[in-house]
């Protein structure tokens, strides 16, 4: 509740001061080394803290035992350092079902998000670079689809899939994940900007077929956009909760999100065994691949964002 008011005020103050600082000595600070604003640094610091605090909490508490979790201060280490023990317990608890959930998630991400990206690239490129009848209708549909939350479609999809006998199978999660209206829209806009039509015409004049033009000429230019869409769909599929919740009832096909929730729910039933330490450690292990993906792919991503600005 306090967050909006406390960020709003400093922002207002910066805009007030902005004219003064713009006129202020520009020469001493080259574009490469702009003047440091204390206010902005503090503001950014607070935002970073706000974003990182849950992560810090997660790392700290993943190092505690179940007993220790409940009787120690949340934001500092306490008792024995049990991280390695927690990790091995997480991986072996309930016959190592966590590993199975991990592999399931990986499957959903590779096939689902990978497929979604592939389809978005094909469709986006086609829509951006080819003229055909009904293009406006497609545009309207895509824009409309972006506005419909996936959650709203989950139940009708469930009813349809159960008629087809697809519920409780990996397909029930993968097939809906293959469609990413936002990804398609993003690729469309990106392809329109990043692939000059003149270049395509030049390729055609040189006798290159459409497929060859797409793979050899357009695809490299689209790479930064592809990475963006890939990251986007990956995060979405990795964190997908509601769709598998409705579709999948067999714990052997659970993704990590559902599995961790099942472990968490264990604490809220008669005779159940609370395993909060495993839920926390499991959550930490769950976000590691995403963090890695961002760190590894951010280079491509940044170059993509910067590419347009230089051409200007």
């Amino acid at each position: 509740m306090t967050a909006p008011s406390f960020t709003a005020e400093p922002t207002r103050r910066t805009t007030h001061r902005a004219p003064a600082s713009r006129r202020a000595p520009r020469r001493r600070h080259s574009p490469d080394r702009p003047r440091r604003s204390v206010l902005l640094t503090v503001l950014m610091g607070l935002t970073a803290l706000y974003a990182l605090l849950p992560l810090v909490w997660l790392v700290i508490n993943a190092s505690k035992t179940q007993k220790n979790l409940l009787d120690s201060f949340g934001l500092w280490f306490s008792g024995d350092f049990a991280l390695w023990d927690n990790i091995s317990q997480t991986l072996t608890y309930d016959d190592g079902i966590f590993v199975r959930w991990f592999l399931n998630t990986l499957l959903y991400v590779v096939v689902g998000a990978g497929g979604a990206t592939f389809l978005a690239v094909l469709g986006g490129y086609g829509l951006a670079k080819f003229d055909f009848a009904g293009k406006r209708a497609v545009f309207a549909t895509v824009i409309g689809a972006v506005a419909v939350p996936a959650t709203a479609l989950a139940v009708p999809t469930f009813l349809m899939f159960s008629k087809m006998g697809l519920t409780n199978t990996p397909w029930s999660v993968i097939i809906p994940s293959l469609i990413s209206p936002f990804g398609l829209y993003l690729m469309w806009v990106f392809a329109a900007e990043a692939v000059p039509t003149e270049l395509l015409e030049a390729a055609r004049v040189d006798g290159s077929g459409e497929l060859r033009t797409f793979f050899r000429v357009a695809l490299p230019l689209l790479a930064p956009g592809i990475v963006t869409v890939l990251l986007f769909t990956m995060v979405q599929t990795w964190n997908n909760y509601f769709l598998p919740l409705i579709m999948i009832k067999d714990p052997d096909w659970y993704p990590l999100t559902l599995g961790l929730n099942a472990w968490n729910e264990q604490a809220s039933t008669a005779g159940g065994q609370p395993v909060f330490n495993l839920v926390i450690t499991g959550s930490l292990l769950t976000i590691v691949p995403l963090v890695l993906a961002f760190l590894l792919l951010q280079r491509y991503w940044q170059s993509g964002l910067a590419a347009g600005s230089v051409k200007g």
Partner: protein
Amino acid sequence: MRTMTRRAMRGVGLLCAAALSLTACGSSEEAASDKAVSGSDLRAALKEGGSITVWAWEPTLKQVVSDFQKEYPKVKVKLVNAGTGNDQYTALQNAVQAGSGVPDVAQVEYYALGQFALGKSLEDLSRYGADKFKDDYSPGPWNAVTVDEAVYALPMDSGPMALFYNKKVLDKHQIAVPTTWDEYLEAARALHAADPKAYIANDTGDAGFTTSMIWQAGGTPFKNRDTNITVDLTNDKGVTTYTKVWQKLIDEKLLAPISSWSDEWYKGLADGTIATLATGAWMPANFVSGVESASGDWRAAALPQWKKGDEVSSENGGSSLAVMKASKNKDLAYAFNEYANHSEGVQARIEAGAFPATTADLASPTFLDTTFPYFGGQKANEIFARSAAQVPEDWSYLPYQVYANSIFNDSVGKAYVSDTKLADGLKEWQKAAVDYGTEQGFDVNK
């Protein structure tokens, strides 16, 4: 378009495969009729084997399933945790509606049975002879699983209520264990005055708990006969008795604002923030696994009374196993159900910490003599068993209690966080329940 058809074809193929494998398991076709099934029929089905799916989150069933499969090697039981409570009911409702993916056996809490029984999703077990089990189960659970002549499930466990209290905390402040709810209020005041960080109990609005308390106070706020329903949460004497005391606990801020089952709750039970807990007799297993560090601090006592000298208790929680009408293998499903809840399985579940609903076990000397190291060696089952026999029998839930409970905090919950009175909150809850019932086609309060 072509891929669509192919996809659909695969769906059809899968369905056929499923149907084939089920008919191959045998004995399913005859079960579709309503004729009586005898014990020898069941034994034949068990011998022939097959596979069934059980949706349940109750942890001790794991052991039962493995014992059962050892005894009947041809039967394969797939135990699936499809979510706890509400999550599972939603999934079950979805599956029933979709007409596929319905399990053979499902765990259903007592308060939720009405909803599935009325929706005609559950098999009447009296054709298997389950109607003869009346005297084998304690009255609270048995009443919950029967509607008129029909038996819609077998009781799995029960939750006769008791008062669990942190002896260390009460002793430290020289507070006696309350035997009436008025004494409870006094104890709450004394405790909070002595230690502002300690509370007599936690409560942020819990439909299950509130209805159990009204039940003990002799209330019958919900009555139903066929599609005629009465909801009275304003003038019912159980309701007024309850709100009189509980309103004071709320007004004087004597209840810890901690929701049950949260990590904070476990923490509060461990460190003395929450000094007592009035709940079902299934709680000891949760104490042992979730509140490890307070071992030896806690004891059990009889539930405080609304009138001094009375001996009335109530039920809180507890669940049953039902056979789904959509099951293709009802004979096997029932055979498993009976094994788990009426014969060998019961003992295995008691040993794993479950609290039985079977009278034979509740009266058995080994059960009553069990000492609980967690409760300082107390023979707590004596208290629980006595409680089980003191539950008023005329209680019933709404046929849509799951929904009603899910909206409880929208109305009654306000009493815990604002100036709204508990009585007004309950009145609002009543209105919402009446409106919903009318929308669903019931005759409510007519």
